């Protein structure tokens, strides 16, 4: 078996064991209700994590995700509640702005040859700052279209609800998998993450790819913002603080190498679900505080990074055994 699949399998195994352990303690967790809620509650996180996976696969990082989600939420609230814009038009405007925003970060990263974390850090400040400039209050969104979208769900046997936003997340993941493995753009992303210089010499349009990756991450963050706004029915400039860390954690737990070039979108989905399971467990338990999530996620992060480190070490050892100067 390909050693690259090992982290993915480990993730899947951990996910199943965690879920089984939860079900063992709280049999009620084994229900379509919980499953449906897992999708709904983590929809925005999942959608943003797809974008983050692409960014990390290319060897970069995007710290602006959380701020962009908050920005989108506030923008939608302002447009819909204050200016009476129809949500669909507001969605289009928000997606346009976030995509251009992401693309501009990509332009700076590529052409100024600066580390992505410092550029997206500026992006994070900028997006969060723009939220505050628009408003510092929490603005509720009360629009029939929102109510309609929120009421859209498919009732699963057992009472679970497959909501619109939950389905949207699954759809985004499916599209992400197709882009990653069955499109030229996807192969370019892996190429840039594997070795930028080689990719360039092999004719990969590095500039276009880099800008495209960050534009896509911006777009997906915007989409996550829309989902978040549907989920909370409000826009608040202090929302989604630290979501970038949750998404990075989901990507890493999903088996993607933070150095780029290696990983799977499907793994990220499992990474998101693992985080969701931990939160659900804490809710079911009732006595544990939510900060346990952070600690468990931190421990998982460490375990996966250590696992990857060992795998890289082993493959290096094999490489020096076969070549060497």
């Amino acid at each position, binding site marked *: 078996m390909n050693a690259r699949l090992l982290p993915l399998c480990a993730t899947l195994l951990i996910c199943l064991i965690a879920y089984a352990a939860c079900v063992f303690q709280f049999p009620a967790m084994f229900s379509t209700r919980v499953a449906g809620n897992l999708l709904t509650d983590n929809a925005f996180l999942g959608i943003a994590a797809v974008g983050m996976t692409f960014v990390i696969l290319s060897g970069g990082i995007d710290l602006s995700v959380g701020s962009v989600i908050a920005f989108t939420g506030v923008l939608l609230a302002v447009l819909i509640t204050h200016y009476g814009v129809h949500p669909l038009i507001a969605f289009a405007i928000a997606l346009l702005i976030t995509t251009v925003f992401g693309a501009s970060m990509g332009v700076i990263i590529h052409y100024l040859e600066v580390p992505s974390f*410092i550029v997206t850090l500026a992006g994070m400040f*900028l997006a969060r700052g723009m939220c505050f400039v628009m408003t510092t209050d929490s603005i509720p969104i009360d629009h029939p279209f929102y109510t309609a979208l929120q009421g859209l769900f498919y009732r699963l046997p057992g009472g679970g609800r497959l909501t619109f936003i939950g389905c949207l997340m699954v759809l985004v993941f499916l599209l992400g998998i197709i882009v990653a493995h069955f499109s030229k753009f996807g192969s370019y992303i892996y190429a840039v993450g594997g070795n930028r210089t080689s990719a360039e010499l092999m004719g990969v349009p590095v500039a276009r790819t880099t800008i495209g990756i960050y534009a896509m991450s911006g777009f997906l963050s915007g989409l996550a913002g829309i989902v978040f706004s549907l989920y909370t029915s409000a826009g608040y400039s202090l929302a989604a603080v630290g979501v970038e860390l949750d998404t990075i954690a989901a990507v890493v737990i999903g088996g993607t190498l*933070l150095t780029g070039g290696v990983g799977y979108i499907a793994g990220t989905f499992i990474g998101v679900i693992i985080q969701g399971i931990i939160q659900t467990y804490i809710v079911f338990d009732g006595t544990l505080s939510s900060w346990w999530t952070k600690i468990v996620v*931190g421990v998982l992060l460490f375990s996966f990074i250590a696992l990857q480190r060992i795998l890289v070490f082993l493959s290096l050892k094999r490489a020096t055994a076969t070549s060497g100067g």
Partner: protein
Amino acid sequence: MIRLNTAALTKAMPQLLSLMLILFLNYLAFPGFFEIRLQDGRLFGSLIDVFNRGAPVIILAIGMTAVIASRGVDLSVGAVMAVAGALAATMTVAGYPLPVVILAALGAGLACGLWNGILVAYFDLQPIVATLILMVAGRGIAQLITEGSIVTFTEPGLIFFGTGSFAGVPMPILIAASLLAVAIAVVRRTALGLLIESIGINRSASSYAGLNSKLLLLVIYGFCGLCASLAGIIIAADIRGADANNAGLWLELDAILAVVVGGTSLFGGRFSILMSALGAVIIQAMNTGILLSGFPPEYNLILKALVIIVILLAQSFSSLGGWAFLKGEFRSKGTKRQ
């Protein structure tokens, strides 16, 4: 390393000029900006405030400079601040004596830093990756310590670190200045400056030359953690409580920004602790300026973003000329002249 000669001064010109410009703008926005008065044996005034509020970031920037010079970055300092603050507050409330509290908080920071250092030096993890772990888990640990609530305290000894003063100078300024002086002295009097720059520029070659680069990295990250805990104690003392969620939030980014503003490259190598401290002061002067001119403090974020972009543009333009030259020359393996 710093050498106070004209060359160093010329190099610091952009930073000094921008600081002067910001201070001048602050003066325009608030004519009383430069007024300093002595009240209850303590200095007051907007300028003092810049340094007082800037002290935690100055302290963070001192540690961060060493880390960045070694071609690393420490994303966990904000979370470490929260841990140290939480520990200090909780132990004070539990009635431990002040020295024990301070030592425990500093020890926690040191331990966090050493953890990062072990991951970076001995496990060869990328610094961003290694410190990300604690950045995520650190706040959880802080909340574990405070048990999820905001712990407030009234112990005057601890509060003194945040709001007290000595010979009229507020404690945070005093602590930051002492740490700065010690750090600069250490860099100048020992070989650490050279050795840190050396591993930052080329770790492999440094190891070949017999440097103990692993131990040095461990010490650097440990020191950075120590600085973070010191900053965490000051902030907790200042607000007389520990807020695990918000203490030090985003300050890692301010610290990195301060170092970058101070002119240390994110790719390691040449560094100046004094310049990083200057960078931290510049950032705080901007913050204060925004407050004084009546804008909502949230504008700070936009301003910081703009500062980052301007610096990146300036750096790439100033280095582009040099870069184009170097690239052309070295790619052709030029032995241009003997």
